[in-house]
């Protein structure tokens, strides 16, 4: 689902090119390689199958999710689903279950919004620095470290949010009742009580963790987009007397606009779909947040927390799959939009 845009391909291609050229002379020395010739066709097919497998997978995933959700789709009160936050999937005996997912949707989008607010400036800034200003070893080191950041498992991020960042956020957003800081937090909607955040795992903590997780994606894709801008643009700008900052802002950003936008959208896709980290770091509280440090609950965390205990095939089970479809549609449209934007980049470059 997280389809990497075309910008990544040159690296891979460069890495692969030496291989055939190394094998070619060996093949010419040893003639009887008939077996390989015979295998050529099947291998070609296998490779083709590998290429198509991703499409098969995505169709299969969609069919499976939809099949599990289907019986409930006509029965679900969709208006209620999107407008109520009364989520009571396991009601007391004699009561009706209630599936209002508004707070879950708001939870997902608010955490994502906080994440993007933090990750986009940092990510773009880092990309500009790496692609335009950093030289030699610094540049290489930074690129490697950012790739490493992308390799940290999401459960580890969640753990950091719960054990390290949560307590820090809580201690920063804590005030004595009636104090000035408490008053400021209330007026600016930083906290919903004048004593500060009720718990360390909340919207802000989750947002920071998600920002850290999407920064590597934004940096590496934005850097590709900036590098794709021809040097003649930079030279022309500098020749006209623009300083480096003006060059970045007035020339590079507009030229790489689509690529940068796509980078941010893929970062957003990562944040929307993330599960383990938000499950641990957002507080798992089904409410519409009124302040920055209110706990929230996301769609992904709800699926993860409740799926294990549902009766296979009952309404609750199917509604969790419907949540899955909603997520699938959101992340798919984000990725498709990002791909279309990148295609736009190519066209404008060719023209």
């Amino acid at each position, binding site marked *: 689902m997280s389809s990497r845009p075309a910008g990544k391909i040159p690296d891979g291609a460069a890495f692969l090119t030496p291989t055939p050229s190394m094998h070619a002379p060996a093949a010419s020395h040893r003639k009887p390689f008939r077996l390989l010739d015979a295998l050529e066709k099947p291998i070609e097919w296998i490779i083709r199958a590998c290429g198509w497998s991703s499409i098969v997978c995505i169709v299969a995933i969609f069919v499976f999710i939809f099949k599990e959700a289907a019986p409930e789709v006509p029965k679900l009160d969709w208006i209620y689903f999107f407008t109520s936050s009364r989520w009571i999937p396991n009601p007391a005996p004699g009561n009706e279950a209630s599936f209002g997912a508004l707070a879950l949707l708001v939870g997902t989008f608010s955490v994502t919004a906080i994440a993007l607010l933090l990750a986009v400036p940092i990510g773009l800034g880092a990309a500009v620095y790496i692609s335009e200003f950093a030289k030699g070893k610094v540049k290489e080191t930074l690129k490697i470290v950012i790739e490493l950041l992308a390799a940290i498992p999401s459960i580890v991020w969640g753990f950091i949010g719960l054990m390290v960042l949560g307590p820090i956020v*809580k201690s920063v957003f804590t005030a004595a009742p009636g104090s000035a800081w408490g008053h400021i937090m209330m007026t600016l909607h930083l906290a919903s009580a004048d004593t500060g955040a009720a718990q360390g795992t909340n919207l802000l903590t989750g947002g920071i963790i998600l920002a850290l997780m999407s920064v590597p994606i934004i940096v590496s894709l934005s850097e590709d987009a900036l590098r794709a801008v021809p040097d003649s643009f930079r030279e022309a700008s500098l020749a006209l007397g623009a300083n480096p900052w003006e060059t970045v802002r007035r020339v590079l950003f507009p030229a790489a606009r689509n690529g940068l936008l796509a980078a941010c959208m893929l970062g957003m896709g990562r944040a929307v779909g993330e599960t383990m980290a938000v499950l641990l770091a957002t507080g*798992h509280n089904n409410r519409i947040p009124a302040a920055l440090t209110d706990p929230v609950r996301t769609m992904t965390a709800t699926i993860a927390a409740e799926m294990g205990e549902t009766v296979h095939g009952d309404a609750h089970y199917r509604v969790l799959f419907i949540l899955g479809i909603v997520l699938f549609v959101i992340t798919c449209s984000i990725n498709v939009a990002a791909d279309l934007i990148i295609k736009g980049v190519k066209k404008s470059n060719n023209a």
Partner: protein
Amino acid sequence: MNKSLITFSAATIAAVFAFSGCGKKGEDSGGSGTPDAPKKKMVEIRAKGSDTMIQLATAWAEDYRKVAPNVMVNANGGGSGTGIASLQNGTTDICNASREIKPEEKAKVKEVTGKEVKEFVVAYDALAIYSNPANPIKEISIEELREIWAEGGTITTWDVINPAFTGKISLFGRQNNSGTYDYLREHVCGKTAEGKQREFRGGISEMNGSAEVVENVAKTPTGLGYSGMGYKTPTVNWLKISKKKGEAGVEPGIEAARSGSYPISRKLYIYTAGEPTGETKAFIDWILSDEGQKIVAKEGFVSLK
């Protein structure tokens, strides 16, 4: 769901037939082949009822196999009411119940089976309400707790309970598939005007474990949470609970739970139709013994002794 239920019951029936067939064959060959090795007949005890007790019942069943390998206890949930109904129509030997049997249910069993219902108290269940030590409020009534936790409740700030403390109440509970969640809902949230169970309000942080609830209350001055009594730590305070505002609160504790004076506690029962006999009697005696009661404590309930 209906379809899968039918398939499941069909499979169960098939399995039972297959099993009973095998059993007979085994007995025959055992009887004629080696008379010097007296094989004890396999006995099945059917236990059905309370979902709250299902983990406890399963733990008893598992450990009892070590005591009496020839006895297989088949523990099932479904709810206390279902268990009592099964007692009536003879589809269970033991009914686990997390509430006392109603007189009319007792009469019904007598009417259908002709046997008097026998009651055994096998354990106690109690929940503590935890608050932060910085909170000067040390006592609370069930009525107030209801308005704090239940849907549509009127209390959201501490000063309503006692002007000595202010701030929004931050609620920490368990996730909605936990037995503790069900228990507090049943005992604290009360009934709606139509006589239905009131649900919890929105905006409660749902924690994955009881220890997590206690930890969050410990860190939050305005926090309030619920968990089993075993989760008490020095960093949290537990509230004395009274039935009505103005009455003296009862401190949670094993003795208070056993005596029933603590309001958020209940007895857990086993019911049988008529005086239990044979293996069923042996099983219940074992549950009431020290060994069976050890499992009660291990599963997070309060033991009899």
